[in-house]
């Protein structure tokens, strides 16, 4: 891939060379100058291209290679791994974990984003009112987003502990019965979703807030003159004008949430059973979760995840490009 890009400056001149030969003597020197500039430009870019090829493209290709062969730990040592085509993918589709993993991935992503976005939006509108301390408080909201995920995840695990967790303590003090957040199949997924929403709110808040800053205050003043109340102003002005930013926020959220691994792994390891197993967790479980790794099916699951992430990724780029025009 890099070759075609690097060769482009070289490849371009032949197409235009007849015109250069026929032109006045100034032209070739301009052309040479242009070519020298291109060479300089690419000399600056070369490290990053090499970097991408070695550390992105190659691992990804390796990953596809893993998925279409039958790799075992032995394979790494003696270098033999028979080509099996799509057998790993078929095995993954037929695996009893596939259904729950798909369902959990969709639920985890969908519910997380719905809450992160609506809470983030409400908070952005609230903090935009610029009351005393508003900017300080808004800055504090960034804390959950900046903490290492393992820190947040382990804190939530302890808060959600069945016997000694503070959440169950609050529930029982209000007369409810404690919930086995992390150890019961019907609550595990909800538990990790709650933690993930908490982590994602700051990101939504900050981006939507910056979107609000770009809406002209004149529109609100005009609406006020027309007697619009706060509710109407939000739904008739803020919400429609924030649609482009909202689309970007949600799509980025999708891409990020599909990737989420740390939180679930630390809180539940995808369990109990596979009650909170998503594709990212499943892939890791297969590849690194046991003493006998199944790299090939793990890579197959991983490739499925890439495809889903890229679909949303390209959607994001399309929306962004449309907005730029």
């Amino acid at each position, binding site marked *: 891939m890099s070759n075609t890009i690097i060769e482009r400056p070289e490849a371009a001149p032949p197409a235009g060379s007849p015109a250069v030969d026929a032109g006045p003597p100034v032209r070739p020197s301009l052309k040479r100058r242009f070519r020298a500039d291109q060479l300089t430009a690419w000399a600056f870019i070369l490290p990053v*291209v090499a970097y991408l090829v070695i550390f992105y493209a190659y*691992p*990804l290709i390796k990953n596809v290679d893993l998925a279409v062969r039958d790799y075992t730990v032995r394979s790494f040592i003696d270098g033999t791994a028979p080509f099996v085509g799509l057998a790993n993918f078929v095995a993954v589709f037929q695996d009893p974990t596939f259904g729950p993993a798909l369902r959990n991935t969709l639920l985890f992503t969908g519910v997380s984003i719905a809450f992160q976005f609506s809470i983030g939006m409400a908070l952005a509108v609230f903090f935009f009112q610029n009351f005393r301390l508003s900017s300080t408080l808004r800055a504090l909201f960034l804390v959950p987003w900046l903490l290492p995920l393992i820190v947040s995840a382990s804190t939530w695990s302890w808060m959600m502990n069945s016997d000694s967790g503070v959440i169950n303590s609050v529930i029982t003090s209000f007369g409810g019965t404690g919930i086995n957040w992390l150890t019961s199949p019907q609550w595990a997924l909800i538990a990790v979703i709650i933690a993930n929403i*908490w982590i994602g709110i700051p990101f939504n808040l900050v981006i939507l807030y910056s979107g609000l800053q770009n809406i002209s205050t004149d529109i609100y003043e005009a609406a006020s003159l027309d007697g619009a109340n706060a509710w109407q102003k939000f739904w008739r002005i803020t919400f429609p004008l924030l649609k482009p930013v909202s689309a970007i926020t949600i799509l980025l959220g999708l891409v990020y949430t599909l*990737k989420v691994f740390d939180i679930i792994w630390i809180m539940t390891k995808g369990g109990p059973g596979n009650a909170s197993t998503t594709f990212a967790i499943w892939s890791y479980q297969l590849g690194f979760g046991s003493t006998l790794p199944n790299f090939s099916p793990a890579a197959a699951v991983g490739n499925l995840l890439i495809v889903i992430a890229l679909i949303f990724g390209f959607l994001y780029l399309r929306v962004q490009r449309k907005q730029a025009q």
Partner: protein
Amino acid sequence: MSATLTRPAGARPAPGASTASAPKRNRGPRTMWKTALGVLFTAIMLFPVYWMVNVSLTPASEMRSTPPSWFPFHATFDGYTQVIQQQLPYLGTSLLVGLGTVVLTVAVSAPAAFALAKLRPRGGGALSFILIVAQMIPQVIIAMGFYAIYLNLGILNQAGGLIIADSTLAVPFGVLIFTAFMSGIPDELMSAAKLDGASTWRTFTSVVLPVSRNSVVTVSLFAFLWAWSDFVFSSTLNSGGTSQTITLGIYRYIGNNNQDWNAIMATAVVASIPATILLVVAQRYVAAGVTAGAVKD
């Protein structure tokens, strides 16, 4: 906002008629309840952080009491003593890996961004596109590829390998942030340097980089934070050797002595220190980093 300020005074609506623009100037007692509400929201949001600190100070004997102690009245520093005794090497590795990632990220991404922003390379658009797509690839998958490669090369469980892997989180981001920033540097500045006889490289190091200080801070900050927080690469590529990171230190704690939440939370508090410092010292860079790339304007 500037539109409001430049409006002729007469065009302003009567006080009270506008609720959207008024709060900018009206910071009187009428907004007190909003401040109170804001404090409440922030308190709820930061409760887990408070709880982490609280548990890190709770003695082991009270750890399982019901109801849990809401305030650290009998504060103990046992957890922190354990951190100092057991986790210092992990913290050192994380610091080393974080700083290494910063250096590698800036060294690779700043020159490329300079070229993309100012030298109009052919194929630059394609490269930017690839960089955005690269950010979307799940880490777990990159880790799998790296594992296979590192196993063959025999560089598993080494800080250097982890630095390279961690930098993959930050390099695409770095190029995009630097490009956005450097595009804003006036061309006149570069032409002036050229007239003075500076080479392109010299222009980059002596003119462009110093002017781009802010974006260097933003990129370094995120590169460090991501490397410091990384768990996926640490647990896959670096879980065996002597140089393990603090995230793995916490993870081992959770796995091994499941009861000792006092020490686990103390480690978590210590592991949160860089994030806290950065938020206090460099808050505006953080906000800039979150929004950059997501919202174009």
